[in-house]
């Protein structure tokens, strides 16, 4: 039963289908004092941009019922710094290493992807869905044409399997997903955060300097699940599901809806052991249900 969770994702063998979501787990070292990070299937590192960024000003996180609005704004050390420093840290975790690349322009994406060829990533996750940067990644993920264009450009230069992270804010998510597949994406991850906002009523002002912010957490889970289900029915490439997953049951729902693997993000903040509990829970589920591998339930609903 020890291999019941082993999962092939884009040609990479993961110990299990549980991946730390980008932006919630640093580059893998931060949570090491609190949990056995090496047990995770993979880690998607903090979203990178070519030249790095200081991120957004003002309040960056605001709690909502069963969710969090965030406006971090892709604060990151830049691709070059990642190649020289953080990559080695991620590699030491013993988990599949996924670099998450965002950008402000075509050139940012292409040059960033080229630089990332210098390290042996397991997967490159292309972020065309961050809602928190003006003229940022989300703009590319909004329509099938712009998404396909960027995917095509990056696919031409990268030597890594390409996972494209989609925005639930797209006008027609299924159309974007299909376009990415046609443009050469090896897999899709969805969903990134939903665009939301908050008002500080006492101060009669917007909470976030940037106005709108990204909503994550269990509050978005049913919508994310529906979107993953729709996309899984429409494409043939593997889908990584995420959006508010906090428990084993949540993870099973996404897998049954068709996801090959899942990512956990916000849940880790409230409970650093959330992903380990999910891994244990999935193992137990396989044992109870006599599954040789968790993939047997993939897409059964």
């Amino acid at each position, binding site marked *: 039963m020890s291999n019941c969770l082993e999962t092939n994702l884009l040609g990479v063998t993961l110990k299990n289908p549980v991946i730390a979501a980008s*932006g*919630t*787990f*640093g580059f893998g070292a*931060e*949570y090491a*004092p*609190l949990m056995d990070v090496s047990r995770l299937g993979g880690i998607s590192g*903090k979203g990178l941009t070519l030249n790095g960024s*200081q*991120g957004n000003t003002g*309040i*960056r*996180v*605001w*709690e909502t*019922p*069963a*969710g*969090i609005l*965030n406006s*971090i704004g892709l*604060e990151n050390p830049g691709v070059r710094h990642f190649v020289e420093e953080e990559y080695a840290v991620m590699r030491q975790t013993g988990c599949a290493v996924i670099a998450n690349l965002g950008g402000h322009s075509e050139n940012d994406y292409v040059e960033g992807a080229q630089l990332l060829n210098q390290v042996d990533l397991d997967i490159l996750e292309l972020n065309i869905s961050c809602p928190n940067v003006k003229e940022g990644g989300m703009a590319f993920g909004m329509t099938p044409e712009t998404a396909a264009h960027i995917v095509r450009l990056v696919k031409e230069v990268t030597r890594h399997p390409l996972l494209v992270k989609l925005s639930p804010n797209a006008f027609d998510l299924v159309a974007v997903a299909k376009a990415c597949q046609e443009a050469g994406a090896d897999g899709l991850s969805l969903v990134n955060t939903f665009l939301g906002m908050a008002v500080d009523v006492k101060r009669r002002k917007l909470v976030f300097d940037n106005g709108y912010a990204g909503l994550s*957490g*269990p509050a978005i889970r049913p919508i994310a699940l529906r979107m993953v289900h729709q996309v899984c029915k429409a494409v043939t490439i593997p889908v990584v599901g995420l959006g508010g997953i*906090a428990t084993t049951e949540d993870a099973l729902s996404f897998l049954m809806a068709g996801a090959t693997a899942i990512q956990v993000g*916000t849940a*880790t*903040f*409230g*409970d*650093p052991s959330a992903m380990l509990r999910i891994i244990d829970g999935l193992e137990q589920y396989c044992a109870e249900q006599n599954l040789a591998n968790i993939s047997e339930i993939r897409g059964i609903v």
Partner: protein
Amino acid sequence: MAVVMRNQEISPDIFHLVVGGISGGKCGQFYMLKPNDTLDPLLGRPISILDCDDEHNTTSFLYQVVGKGTDLLSRLRTGDYLAVTGPFGNGFPALDADVTLIGGGIGIAPLYYYAREQKRLFPNRKLNIHLGFREESYFTEEFQELADEFSVNIGGFVTDDVNFDRQAIYVTCGPGPMMQAVAKLCREHGKELYVSMEARMACGVGACLACTCKTAKGNKRVCKDGPVFKGEEIYE
């Protein structure tokens, strides 16, 4: 899991919480306290260590009710369990020097453990403590027992009570404008200063970058690189 041993309102909206089952934190560090196991609120609340008793494995906190999370925290009764992670953050430096502590409001909390540690490690060094409150003071007797010089200011400016000409290192925690005023006075008098910062946090471990603050050395994470910084890093 940690257990509540005491959770008492000692002043309007100010609670003294003693938690059993956790200890070993350093002064200036904090824990993420999560009073509920439901999804709303989702996050723990970063609360500074007021005091720590390694022998009895207890850690105490002083917190102010300001929102949903701290309101839920205030409803915990003796014997209730709460989820605790930590301790997090860098903590205060042990200083073999005379030290002047300047605390404002709920910002006094981390200074108490620090005062106790300074007195224990350097009993012959002078410890001056100046506390300021907006309307009502609390936890002042405990501070007074440790202080060589002591003052409490209610409704005014705590900085009016502080002698910035001493051969001392200054340490402050409190509202932003107060710490900014302290930093200005320390700069004018050429004094070394440490500040303990507060920020909205999600993870507490340096992963999410929600609590980033701008410093002279670029962005720093309050939860991981701080919460204690050199004064000149934060206030130019």
